[in-house]
């Protein structure tokens, strides 16, 4: 009996010490990571300090399943920060990135966002990839009045006063691509997606659009994330005989789908597929041999012909290696940093409200062409591009929208979209 | 005669993947009887104990306990009805203390609700203490049972069984691994217990059987070979042929194990 008790006692002591020391220790640690300056905490919520530094948060998944995609975005954002710092920083101050790992886990994104804002007191955060991670962070940014730059195309139907969306919303990617397909490739659509929010919502939009624009839905299928056998699904597609497979599969599923599609004897000549989640990076993992001739819709390709892109691609390859490729989300992450920096310069401050005000209608020559922030929705004007995969793993642009399209996250400009408005 | 039988195995057959371990075995146990079950290895002695206590479902035949048919009952139901079993290898609960072992074995209401709110009554404690003294472990009540010696574990298990207060005790080689002194003590204890309860003992130790048995059942190849007093058994030619002839082999294999 004696030993049991004594042993519990020592355990408890350890517990108390850890809880107290742990918490206390944390505070110390935060102070010391504030760098050489202990005054950082005094300038609460400003994100800057007297010594000439501005802290910004970078919050992507560096581990877990989503790291595949997000690590390149971090690279692009870091590159933009380096470039800006090399050119003298913002407001004459250096930008200091604080990296956090979202670990492909949505609650972790929320936790880390909270930490960046309230502990590190960053001026802004660049981060997120999946819709889920953004949805998880959104309440935190709204509660603490932080600022988030989200760099990935997404399903729309959202606009938060504390988030800037530098990726495409539906009317800058999906809607125009569907119209283009209807005009050029055929009326019968087969919707294939991974089972999560983006594909389901995107397909909801597509179905309405097909009804309105004379298309026909011949099938709709969702596969679990990480699904790797598409033989049955391909037979189903064969039976349905669509003109177009509109593909919203995500990540690894794309690899399996395209490899097995080719094995089934179906090439891009036999069946048009258009993907919205396959960019240059993904092509490398799938293999050009299986993807050649298939289509994708984005706002940017590595081959996009603008002066800004030439230097962007060059610098990116110089910094991270010649074998690396740029892609739409990478470019959007890069653009986000520049847009924020420009807004800060214009506002003359890093305070969230002032930056937001200054960002309205701000324009910048991004690698994808001229972009402009839409003040009302905090999305940006983007040019839509449809590309075809070439033998070298790059896209050839088949069509573009000519000018940057005004973002319309709630699809208010489309009559047929009346039924998919949010209920709240 | 018939009404005094407390346990009746009627034409019990057990099959393991086509192999008949027990074939049409009959066994009748009177109240207050101390019965020894012997036979060469593989005769089906342990299997018949398994059938009685519900561990093995017979493919044919019936087992009746008192007036209750227990052939289809589950182990814990059979145990609750009053049949206790001690296995060959000491199976106590090694991470619990000796007195905890006894506490849960003690006869009591065994529902979740009852155990959740059970308070150790004065009477219960004295029963446990009494048992501890009887099995000679009063000084080791707070030891973890896993730390006991082999013989002590055997005793503890017997103690647990006694606290369980079953009407029939099924013992599988209770004196295996015991010293001569311990063996004798166990034998005496069995006789004492048999005054109130019935006991079936499976045993290889012929010395022990000779010293303590009143009635012996011999099994061979899953069947009843002979039943009677030790003298009758020893005089029987068939027993001598199938059992005693092979006994030497059995002893040899046991001594090497």
């Amino acid at each position, binding site marked *: 009996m004696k030993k049991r008790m004594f042993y519990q006692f020592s355990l408890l002591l350890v517990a108390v010490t850890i809880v107290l020391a742990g918490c206390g220790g944390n505070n110390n640690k935060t102070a010391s990571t504030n760098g050489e300056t202990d005054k950082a905490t005094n300038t609460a919520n400003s994100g800057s300090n007297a010594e000439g530094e501005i802290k910004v948060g970078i919050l992507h998944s560096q*581990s877990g*399943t989503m*790291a*595949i*995609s997000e*690590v390149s975005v971090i690279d692009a954002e870091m590159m933009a920060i380096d470039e800006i710092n090399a050119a003298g920083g913002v407001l004459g101050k250096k930008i200091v990135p604080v990296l956090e790992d979202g670990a492909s886990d949505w609650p972790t994104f929320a936790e880390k966002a909270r930490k960046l804002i309230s502990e590190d007191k960053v001026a802004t955060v660049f981060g997120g990839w999946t819709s889920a991670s953004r949805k998880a962070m959104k309440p935190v940014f709204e509660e603490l009045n932080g600022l988030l730059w989200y760099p990935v195309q997404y399903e729309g139907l959202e606009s938060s006063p504390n988030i800037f969306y530098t990726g495409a919303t539906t009317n800058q990617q999906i809607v125009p691509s569907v119209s283009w397909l209807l005009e050029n490739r055929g009326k019968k659509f087969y919707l294939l997606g991974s*089972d999560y929010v983006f594909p389901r919502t995107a397909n909801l939009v597509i179905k309405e659009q097909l009804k309105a624009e004379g298309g026909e839905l011949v099938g709709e*299928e*969702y*596969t*679990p994330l*990480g*699904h*790797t*056998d598409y*033989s*049955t*699904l391909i*037979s*189903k597609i*064969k*039976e349905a005989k669509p003109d177009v497979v509109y593909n919203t599969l995500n*990540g*690894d599923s794309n*690899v*399996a789908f395209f*490899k*097995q599609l*080719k*094995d*089934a*004897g179906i090439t891009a000549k036999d069946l048009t597929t258009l993907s919205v989640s396959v960019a240059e*990076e*993904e092509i*490398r*993992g*799938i*293999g*050009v*041999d299986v993807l050649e001739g298939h289509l994708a819709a984005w706002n940017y390709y590595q081959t996009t012909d603008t002066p800004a892109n030439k230097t962007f691609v060059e610098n990116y390859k110089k910094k991270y290696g010649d074998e690396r490729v740029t892609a739409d989300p990478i470019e959007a992450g890069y653009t986000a940093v520049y847009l924020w920096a420009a807004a800060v310069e214009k506002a003359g401050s890093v305070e969230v409200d002032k930056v937001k005000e200054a960002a309205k209608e701000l324009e910048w020559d991004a690698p994808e062409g001229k972009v402009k922030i839409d003040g009302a929705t905090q999305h940006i004007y983007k040019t839509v591009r449809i590309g075809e995969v070439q033998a070298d793993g790059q896209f050839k642009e088949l069509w573009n929208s000519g000018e940057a399209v005004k973002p319309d996250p709630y699809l208010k400009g489309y009559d047929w979209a009346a039924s998919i408005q949010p209920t709240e | 005669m018939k009404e005094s039988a407390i346990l009746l195995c009627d034409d019990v057959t057990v099959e*393991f*993947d086509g192999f008949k371990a027990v074939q049409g075995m009959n066994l009748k146990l009177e109240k207050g009887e101390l019965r020894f079950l012997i036979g060469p290895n593989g005769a089906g002695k342990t299997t018949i104990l398994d059938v009685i206590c519900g*561990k093995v479902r017979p493919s044919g035949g019936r087992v009746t306990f008192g007036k209750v048919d227990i052939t289809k009952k589950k182990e814990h139901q059979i145990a609750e009805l009053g049949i206790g079993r001690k*296995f060959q290898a000491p199976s106590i609960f090694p991470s619990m203390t000796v007195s905890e072992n006894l506490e849960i074995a003690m006869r009591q209401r065994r529902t979740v609700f009852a155990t959740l709110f059970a308070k150790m009554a004065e009477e219960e404690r004295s029963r446990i203490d009494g048992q501890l003294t009887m099995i000679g472990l009063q000084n080791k009540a707070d030891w973890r049972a896993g730390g006991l010696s082999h013989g002590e574990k055997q005793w503890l298990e017997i103690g647990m069984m006694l606290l369980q207060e079953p009407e029939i005790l099924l013992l599988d080689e209770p004196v295996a691994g015991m010293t001569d002194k311990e063996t004798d003590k166990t034998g005496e204890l069995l006789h004492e217990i048999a005054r109130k309860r019935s006991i079936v003992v499976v045993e290889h130790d012929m010395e022990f059987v000779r010293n303590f048995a009143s009635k012996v059942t011999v099994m061979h190849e899953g069947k009843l070979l002979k039943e009677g007093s030790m003298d009758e058994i020893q005089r029987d030619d068939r027993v001598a042929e199938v059992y005693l002839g092979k006994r030497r082999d059995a002893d040899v294999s046991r001594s090497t194990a």
Partner: protein
Amino acid sequence: MEVFLLQLFNGLSISSILLLVALGLAITFGLMKVINMAHGELIMIGAYSTYLTQNLFQDYLPKSLFDWYFVLAVPVSFVIAFIFGLILEISLIRFLYGRPLDSLLATWGVGLVLQQLARSIFGAPNVAVTSPAWLNGGMKIMDGTLLPYKRIFIIALVIACLVSMYFYIYRSHEGRRMRAVMQNRDMASCLGVSTRRVDAMTFAIGSGIAGIAGCALTLLGPIGPSLGTYYIVDAFMVVVLGGVGKLVGTVLGATGIGMFNTLFEYWTNASLGKVLVFVCIVAFLQWKPMGLVAMRSRSLD
């Protein structure tokens, strides 16, 4: 008719993949009672081995030989996964015999480390393996029904693995020792069989087969650090459903799951199909806890 045939083939194909993935587990889990959660990572190692073989061929050998890299990749994957398995057994698994649940947890940790290792070496994104030209295309059995050569190849590969395993286990000297150790460790060691050696070999062979599975999977799916996680649970289901300790059971388990998966997926959709299959497995195990082919034994616990 076409659809029926094609679906039958698809079901067979999925079964063969499941079987290939589960065969290694059937050995480590079925015979050794070690729950190897890192099995998926051994599959991943096999896949990366294939990738490396491909790269070596690309870089150092004439283009005309490139198509034959896959022939070499199968044994290479086996050997590399075998070596990993051996190291794993010697450094870790041998402490875990008789503690199946602990082996599950510890090997999960190993899996985590191996995944991270792959991520550090090859990077987080998927890598591409170009399948050899002779495996492209398929057999046309009637109009619109094409049986891809890759899938036929995998089916053949599984059969080859099964046959060689059968011969190894039931016909070879080594195999006899292995069975002896798995059935009665003490007795075998008394008879002079080195149980340590047999354990290590058995585990390594199970791992090696996982490597072959990984090699085959490069033909069909993604090759990335998390490759193994997609298959591990399915593989366990196959082994448990089939019944532990019998190869026949594993074959039946894989065929059952593969066929039903295809059927349900065809009737409903991929998500629901998966749910239905798992519900069926859970329900089936309630009915027959020991699986399809149960090994009955008299021993208590």
